[in-house]
């Protein structure tokens, strides 16, 4: 009794706020919660005339192709390692850039540099993929033309799998650092300037201020950002990998992630909703387990930083 009463009064009290919440709630119900019912297609043999719910059950058969491919472990490992590299390198560079910008004094130079860092974010991976090929291809690529011009021997980038890890992480940073640093920059702007002023009075230099004021106050933001990204740790950045590497099977052992593998494997077949849904479910389930356990771990160490 008491609970319902308080809920009603709560609703009444914050009428406007709840009203404003409705569109977001509807959005998630329609686009995130309702489609979850479709997960069952991962356990079905999809037939067109019967639809998702009428199709016959096949148990775990749709999962079989992925785990029998002999690649499941390699792909999971690649996907996780790449994502860890993206998260770690991305965070370090983004925080660094954000701090740099916050310390820059000239207004115009700051605006200009920020825009030029942000610009790559708007270039499609398709375009990036084609100019990467323009740079690195063996016969007529600009890198090799340059090397030959200097009298050095050309390098076969596409035949050399080990450097692709760095190329991919490099392009990831180039494209996303500008955008990612905005969040951190906003967090830095939110820090009370009085803290810096009193530090100035105490004679702290710029590095001491960063070390003892900016970084500790950014910690919450950093942890939240990491938690948000860890949930998708089994999701490969499909368009990036696909556009940069494509079907170059010489590089697969170093660059293949779950998403590109599934795309390749099922693209050649007819439409089978079951198998891609099965792999998607695997990715989501593992991602869910990872984020829940990481959150629990953080909660144990310091409850203030946990997401939920």
């Amino acid at each position, binding site marked *: 009794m008491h609970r319902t009463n308080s809920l009603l009064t709560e609703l009444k009290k914050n009428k406007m706020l709840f009203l404003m919440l409705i569109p977001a709630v509807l959005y998630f119900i329609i686009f995130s919660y309702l489609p979850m019912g479709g997960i069952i297609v991962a356990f079905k*043999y*999809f*037939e*067109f*005339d*019967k*639809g998702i719910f009428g199709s016959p059950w096949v148990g775990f*058969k749709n999962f*079989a*192709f992925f785990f*029998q*491919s*002999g690649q499941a472990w390699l792909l999971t490992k690649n996907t996780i390692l790449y994502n860890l590299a993206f998260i770690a390198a991305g965070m370090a560079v983004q925080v660094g850039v954000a701090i740099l910008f916050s310390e820059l004094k000239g207004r115009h130079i700051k605006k200009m540099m920020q825009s030029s860092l942000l610009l790559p974010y708007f270039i499609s991976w398709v375009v990036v*993929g*084609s100019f990467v*090929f323009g740079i*690195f*291809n*063996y*016969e007529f690529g600009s890198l090799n033309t340059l090397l030959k011009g200097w009298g050095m021997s050309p390098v*076969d980038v*596409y*035949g050399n799998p080990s450097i692709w890890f760095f190329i991919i992480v490099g392009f990831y940073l180039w494209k996303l650092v500008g955008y990612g640093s905005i969040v951190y920059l906003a967090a830095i702007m939110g820090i009370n300037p009085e803290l810096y002023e009193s530090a100035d009075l105490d004679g702290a230099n710029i590095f001491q201020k960063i070390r003892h004021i900016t970084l500790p106050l950014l910690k919450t933001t950093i942890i939240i950002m990491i938690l948000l990204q860890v949930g998708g740790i089994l999701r490969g950045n499909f368009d990036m990998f696909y556009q940069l*590497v*494509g*079907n*170059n*099977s*010489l590089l*697969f052992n170093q660059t293949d992630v779950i998403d590109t*593998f599934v795309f*390749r*494997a*099922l693209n*050649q*077949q*007819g*439409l*089978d*909703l079951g*198998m891609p849904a099965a792999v998607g479910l695997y990715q989501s389930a593992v991602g869910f387990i990872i984020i829940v356990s990481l959150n629990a771990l953080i909660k144990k160490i310091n409850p203030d930083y946990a997401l939920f």
Partner: protein
Amino acid sequence: MYLPSDGAPDAKRIHEELNKLTLKDINATVNITFLSNDAYNLMLSSGEKFDLIFAANYMNYADNARRGAFKEITPELLNTYAPLSAKESKDKLAGGYVNGKMYALPTLSASFNYSTYVVRGDLMKKYNVPDIKSIDDFGVYLDAVAKNEKNMIPFNIGKNDAWMLCSLYFGNYNLMAPGLPNCTSPIAIQKDDPALKLQYTFDFPETEQFLKKMKQWKDNGYWSKNALSNTVGLNDSFKNGKNAAVLASIPGANNVYNEVSKSHPEWDVRIYPAFTQGSIDRYSYMAGGMALGAKSEHPERALMLLDLLRYNEAYNMLTQYGIEGTHYTLNDKGDIVFPADSKYPPNAAGTWGWTNETYTKVFDGSFPNYAALTEDAKKRYQPNPLVDFTIDAKEISDITTNLSNLFAQYAAPMYMGFIDDVDTGIQEYKDKIKQAGVDKYMETAQAQIKAYLNTK
């Protein structure tokens, strides 16, 4: 009616003309919508109500039919509403049957699995290259280009072109893959084997020799060291003068010839047959066809329309070539002439489902030996008892998925010569497909072939 195609500028006008005819003849009109290949699958899975749709083996016709995407065309329906199609020879309808039931009416045009080399006559003359009569002769031509034309890549294949090389191999060595559209199958049948026994492609000594030759070609620089990342197609780089050879079907070669003989007559483009030994195979008539939607509400009108499109000259010519005088004219030889920048170019408006040889015209300006090569294909054609067979992969879909993926990862680079040692490469590929269950795949395929031949 849904057709997978980008359409043509004047398609709407043609559709209006078509509807004038249908209103008169069968008291119905047809609403034609174009859609992309990707949207095709989504449309089928959405469960939308429609009457007619294009279907073809290369778009997984049989698998879609087994999954209930199409309405069955029962003998009663066919006899009553499409009497002309019902009277068609069994041979031409066979491709439309899946598990003994008819789900589509296949086209009425035979298309042969016959490839040609499209090469530059000016370069052949310049470097004294003899006529191309075999794979090795083709190698001689590529070699001359590689040694002398430093700004060209002789055979500039791209990332998805490994199938060209394996089809060159299959086509010249009398091999065929049952129930799969192309040579990416790890198992094959020797066409002259009366028992139609399935064998592992990579056990043949010829495979090893061919792969070694391809490695040699790649090492000689006949294609780019980065071919696996090259996204530019052969045709485009040929037209731009960056590439000296194209491998294409007869109609494909004709398209290239038509375009290039106008823009660069000095190149003296020549076309040679690429399958120089063995017999020639025909694709199933189900390389294109029309099916009824599973939830079609007017199957009888749809079938009446199909009969008209397939067998009525006015309907067929209108949909295939447009309006006479505007979109095409016929010259005194009976060849068809298209105006420059036609607003209804042939083979653009998705009408591949009801082509009919009887009404198909030879294009004016076709390459000189066009008729000779078509004749050669017909003469060397050997009927193939499995031409309309498709594997039912329902129980082994995990295996087939992994096999096609393993081809892309291991066999495709080998066909393109990207392997340090061919023998270890073959062994590795064989180990991988064995792990993936190729034995079970072969067993299933062999059993299905046996059952298929028994019912035939």
